[in-house]
């Protein structure tokens, strides 16, 4: 069986973001980058399936971007992917989800992948469109936001997270694509011996232009911090009243109380 996992390298979300000179994306200077959190769940699930299938199966990891994304690729290789594709694109952050999906589909179309894993969304752009668009372009089955995964004899059984804590179960025949959500698994740490082994694994470099020429369908026009709001709400009154007010706010504004 052939497996593919698509990953993105994103800035550490604890970074302080500033708009870039054009004001349409963030300034990358001084940012530390790491693998998109949801993609880590995708890699872990793909590696678990690869381990279950054993000999004769192959797991490829793909990432699009400048040279720095090779760091994320090497992490995925150290976690257990067999080989990698680095789609070289110094302008990946300016591409919309349609173009990114077109690149992935352009690579995958003649490779007969049985299962493709992606994160449910990226932590920086957060469109949640790339996975489903890849599935559509390839004409394969797809389900999203999975928190449970099982594979047996050509059939995937996925547990999906729905609104309000409700779960759904979906079965799909392969070939299929799934997008992975927090709670699916606990990604393994790349161990030092596996980091060493990963150095010997093959990383194929392909220029993005070789895989797609699609134009963008949506353009980001501005990147800016939200306008500063006034201070928070200050509650007043005796303890009993304060508790009632807090409970009312928690019920109204959050999912903590219902």
């Amino acid at each position, binding site marked *: 069986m052939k497996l593919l996992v698509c990953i993105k390298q994103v800035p550490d979300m604890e970074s302080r973001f500033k708009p870039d000179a054009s004001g349409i994306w963030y300034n990358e200077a001084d940012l530390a980058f790491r693998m998109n959190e949801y993609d880590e769940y995708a890699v872990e699930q793909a590696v678990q399936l690869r381990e279950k299938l054993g000999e004769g199966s192959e797991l490829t990891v793909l990432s699009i971007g400048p040279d720095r994304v090779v760091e994320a690729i090497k992490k995925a290789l150290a976690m257990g992917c067999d080989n990698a594709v680095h789609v070289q694109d110094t302008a990946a952050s300016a591409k919309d989800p349609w173009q990114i999906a077109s690149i992935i589909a352009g690579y995958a179309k003649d490779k007969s992948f049985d299962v493709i894993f992606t994160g449910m969304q990226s932590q920086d752009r957060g469109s949640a469109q790339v996975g489903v668009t890849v599935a559509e372009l390839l004409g394969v089955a797809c389900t999203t936001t999975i928190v449970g995964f099982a594979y047996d004899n050509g059939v995937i059984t996925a547990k999906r997270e729905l609104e309000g804590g409700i779960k759904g179960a979906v079965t799909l025949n392969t070939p299929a694509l799934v997008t992975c959500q927090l709670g699916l698994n606990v990604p393994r740490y790349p161990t030092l*011996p596996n*980091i060493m082994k990963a150095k010997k694994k093959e990383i194929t470099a392909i220029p993005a232009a070789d895989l797609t020429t699609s134009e963008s369908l949506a353009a980001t026009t501005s990147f800016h911090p939200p306008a500063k709001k006034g201070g928070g709400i200050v509650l007043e009154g005796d303890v009993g009243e304060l508790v009632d007010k807090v409970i009312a706010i928690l019920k109204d504004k959050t999912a903590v109380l219902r």
Partner: protein
Amino acid sequence: MNFELSQDHKVLQSAVRDFVEKEIKPIAMKIDEDHAIPDSLVKQMGEMGFLGSYLPEEYGGAGLDMLSYAIVVEEVSKACGSSGVLISAHTSLASGPIYTFGTEEQKKKWLPALNTGDTIGCFLLTEPGAGSDAGGTATTYTRDGDHFVINGSKTFITNGGYLGTGVLLASFDRSLKHKGISAFIVDLQSPGVTILKNENKMGIRGSYTTAFAFDNLRVPVENLLGHEGKGFNIAMDTLNGGRIGIASQALGIAEGAFERALAYSKERKQFDQAICEFQAIQFKLADMWTRIETSKLLTYKAACLKDAKKSYTMESAMCKMHASETATYVTKEAMQIHGGYGYIADYEVERMYRDAKITEIYEGTNEVQRVVISKLLLS
């Protein structure tokens, strides 16, 4: 020149950092309070490959380089100086000399269990009367058929309490001073080995510091490391490499304290502003960071020189000396920035301040480092 880590080293750094953040940082205070690193953490660090980072894969190591090792010790020590020195003493002082001076049989026999952390290594050099002056070794050995018989005592042995594998220095003729010393690989589970005590210390309290007595400890002749009478050279070479590990530990402690001081200076308000707005605090932060950066450059340089198989004696002495003095300085200033809270045991800088001091003392006091550096300058 290029001062940036390679992509492979960045991958390693980030992997180690994630592990430390989730598995070590949350229990670092408890390790100090309990005077013990949980066995489960030692096992996990073994599984991660932290205990055999630069040893070759054929002996069960990870096959990485000295710079990777320095990064591992640094990152671990940012959260926990005790765990950092466990790795450093184990790798540099036990696995290191066995790999460098051992025969093929010895490497195959001893290194795999050390590299996976199934046994923990230690280096038995220091004695009650022989510290910086290793030539004063009073532990003696005699030959008895196909065994050496060792008698004497050792003190301040990091990792000793694990009773794992030790590299032990003993003399066959004390009048020969350093020329009478030989090195042995010792299984500390053997009869004749007694723990006199595990010391109660100011800092790195999770790390064992053990005093031993040896009463007719019988060591098979095949456990002689290198040649008889060459033990002193083995010890000096071992400490030379070990200093990179201690420099990395000190660097990590300094960085850990700096991170907390920087964050605290932004949170803590006095006179209606965060204390980081005061120039008095800003200057402290600038001085702390500059010393950290210079320590890092020296430490990484020493590691890279060792990787390149170039002479690194001067650099390892300098990085150990400078990083350890940076650690005591930065932890002291971090405590000062925390004010009274820094002196309270609930705040991590209190522990880091205590952990830092030993780095100026062990694996060659800083006075000895200055001797090494000045001798090389004048030779």
